[in-house]
């Protein structure tokens, strides 16, 4: 790229405006004899209608009295700043009046060499101005480009964070970035069990660069909140992503917190964030959720410590999460706010409805002082979340069907038939919601047929922990030795009555204890049948066909 500041070439284009005077002739003669000077002329009568070279300096010679018409044409022309002009006159009045308008003015007669010197100076000025114009245009172009890119990125951020549940009624937030893009992140998302997750994160630095880290972090956060993943697993995934993504000198302090649906149980992981504060409605600080770990993105997976801490939040208490931008808020008296002052503010404004006053105090403290770090404060009140479980999909019962599978020893040995049947049945939207229950009774009926019918195991073995393990060891052993026998599973669905009818038949000889439906005991056997009895209807055992059957209403 050309250096804008290299010295201008001495070559100089001059257009002399010739008023026909002897001074003009003299000037033209001087210029012709000068080095590196390219001279053109234009008579005063033609000026300024005759085109003038673009980068030419206009040298206006006006001797004596040039008349008001010429004067006004000159006065109109000179202010067009793109062309440098120099006035040469022997008339002190013209010298004074035109000299104020033109780039330069010389009073005739001139000292030797003065004219060339001044022209050279004007030439250099012209070049410098052209360069500045060029720079200005290039800056304007870059600014337009950056603005456009910021718009795009902003749009992406808006979309990425559109799921952020900041309007959740039990959370109040005060989030103020230094620039358009926030290096702090405050994310809130409901889990599937009525629980709520909150993430407060602070990337190194502020502005666009750290904010970009917010994209993958928020994507992971929302996806994992939907699945209802545990805090330990979430932070492990966050660290995995951050340690691969962020440059070595950048990391992300974060506190992740989960509040259970009943608003009592809090689980958190704090890596490098200021201790969040648990306080009650009287403003007493009950607990500090201090950092126990390194920030995200600092250590590798195998060094990462995902251990969480839990506690029970008293009814009516709240948790304040904040970034160091809050405690290091610079006040109008050039003092930091500090954590003690923050705690004092919280104790003065502990209730939910005090949040606006708390923010007012912070803003009063800051006054007109510009922010030097992103600032984020969020207060979550610990009460039943009121979020409820995720709404089930609309009831659509679709087509009736019959499913039947006859399982031979090779199937029984190599696959988990119940899991297979269930994954097929779960494809039907109306059954999906009931998959846990359907699994349970299919598993109970199937295991009863296999373990007692075909494998002739004795459930009384399961009474003590050792026998329990032995029972399942024996199950595996006998299953591998199974030569013959079959289990037939039949599932019939009738959408009009929303009823599933299940029958499971085995070809074995063992005693099925279906007939002797045990009452509830604390023993670990017999419970399967008790569950079946309670969760289904029309449970029956046909000894002749060795078939257990029952119905389940969706």
């Amino acid at each position, binding site marked *: 790229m050309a250096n804008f500041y290299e010295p201008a070439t001495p070559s100089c284009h001059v257009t002399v405006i010739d008023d026909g005077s002897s001074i003009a002739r003299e000037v033209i003669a001087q210029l012709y004899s000068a080095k590196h000077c390219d001279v053109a002329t234009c008579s005063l009568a033609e000026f300024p209608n005759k085109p003038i070279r673009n980068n030419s300096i206009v040298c206006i010679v006006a001797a004596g009295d040039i008349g008001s018409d010429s004067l006004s044409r000159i006065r109109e022309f000179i202010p067009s700043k793109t062309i440098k002009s120099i006035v040469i006159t022997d008339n002190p009045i013209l010298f004074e009046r035109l000299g104020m308008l033109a780039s330069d003015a010389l009073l005739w007669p001139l000292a030797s060499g003065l004219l060339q010197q001044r022209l050279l100076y004007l030439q250099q000025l012209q070049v410098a101005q052209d360069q500045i114009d060029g720079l200005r245009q290039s800056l304007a172009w870059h600014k337009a480009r950056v603005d456009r890119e910021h718009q795009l990125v902003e749009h992406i951020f808006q979309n990425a964070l559109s799921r952020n549940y900041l309007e959740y009624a039990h959370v109040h937030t005060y989030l103020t970035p230094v620039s358009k893009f926030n290096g702090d992140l405050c994310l809130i998302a409901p*889990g*599937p*069990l009525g*629980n709520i997750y909150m993430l407060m994160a602070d990337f190194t630095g502020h502005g666009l660069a750290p904010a970009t880290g917010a994209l993958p972090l928020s994507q992971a956060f929302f996806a994992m909140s939907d*699945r*209802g*993943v*545990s805090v*330990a*697993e979430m932070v492990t995934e966050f660290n995995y992503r951050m340690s691969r993504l962020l440059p070595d000198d950048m990391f992300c302090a974060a506190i992740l917190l989960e509040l*259970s649906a*009943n608003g*009592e*149980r809090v689980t958190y992981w704090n890596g490098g964030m200021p201790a969040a504060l648990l306080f009650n409605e009287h403003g007493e600080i009950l607990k500090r959720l201090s950092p*126990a770990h390194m920030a995200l993105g600092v250590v590798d997976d195998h060094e990462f410590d*995902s*251990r*969480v*801490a*839990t506690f029970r939040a008293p009814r009516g208490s709240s948790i304040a999460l904040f970034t160091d931008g809050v405690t290091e808020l610079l006040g109008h008296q050039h003092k930091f706010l500090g954590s003690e002052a923050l705690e004092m503010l919280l104790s003065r404004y502990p209730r939910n409805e005090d949040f606006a006053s708390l923010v007012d105090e912070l803003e009063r403290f800051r006054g007109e002082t510009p922010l030097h770090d992103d600032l984020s404060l969020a207060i979550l009140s610990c009460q039943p979340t009121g979020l409820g*479980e995720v709404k089930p999909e609309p009831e659509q019962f679709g087509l009736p069907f019959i499913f039947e599978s006859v399982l031979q020893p090779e199937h029984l040995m190599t696959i988990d038939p119940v*899991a297979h049947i*269930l994954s097929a049945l779960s494809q039907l939207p109306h059954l999906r919601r*009931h*998959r*846990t*229950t359907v*699994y*349970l009774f299919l*598993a*109970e009926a199937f*295991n009863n047929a296999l373990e007692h019918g075909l494998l002739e195991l004795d459930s009384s073995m*399961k009474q003590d*922990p050792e026998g*329990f*393990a032995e029972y*399942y060891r024996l*199950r595996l052993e006998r299953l591998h030795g199974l030569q013959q026998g079959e289990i037939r599973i039949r599932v019939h669905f009738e959408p009009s009555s929303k009823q599933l009818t299940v029958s499971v038949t085995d070809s074995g000889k063992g005693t099925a204890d279906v007939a002797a439906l045990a009452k*509830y005991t*604390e023993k*670990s*056997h017999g*419970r*399967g049948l*008790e*569950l079946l009895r*309670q*969760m289904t209807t029309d449970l029956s055992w046909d000894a002749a066909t060795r078939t257990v059957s029952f119905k389940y209403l969706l």
Partner: protein
Amino acid sequence: MPLHRQFSNDGKELIIAIKGKFDFGLVQEFRQAYSNVGDQQPTVFIDLRETEYLDSSALGMLLNMRKSLGKSVKSIHIINCRPEVRSILDISRFDKLFVIE
């Protein structure tokens, strides 16, 4: 990993999380998960947030755990149950033996 075991920062809580299917397939792993609780008398949390399926063998395993841990733990909580899982535990009257949240 269908079973995840972790103590809390202060060692006072043991969290055992089971993903997907909770049945006799985990019998050894599950026993191992609570075999070493230390002498701090921790509280045990069985986290079922990602447990989709369970059967009576899982219930048997939970009861065995309760029997074998006895007084070496403060209490056993079963937490984050999906509604269907919750109703299975309720039918089996597990609320009398465990703290279910």
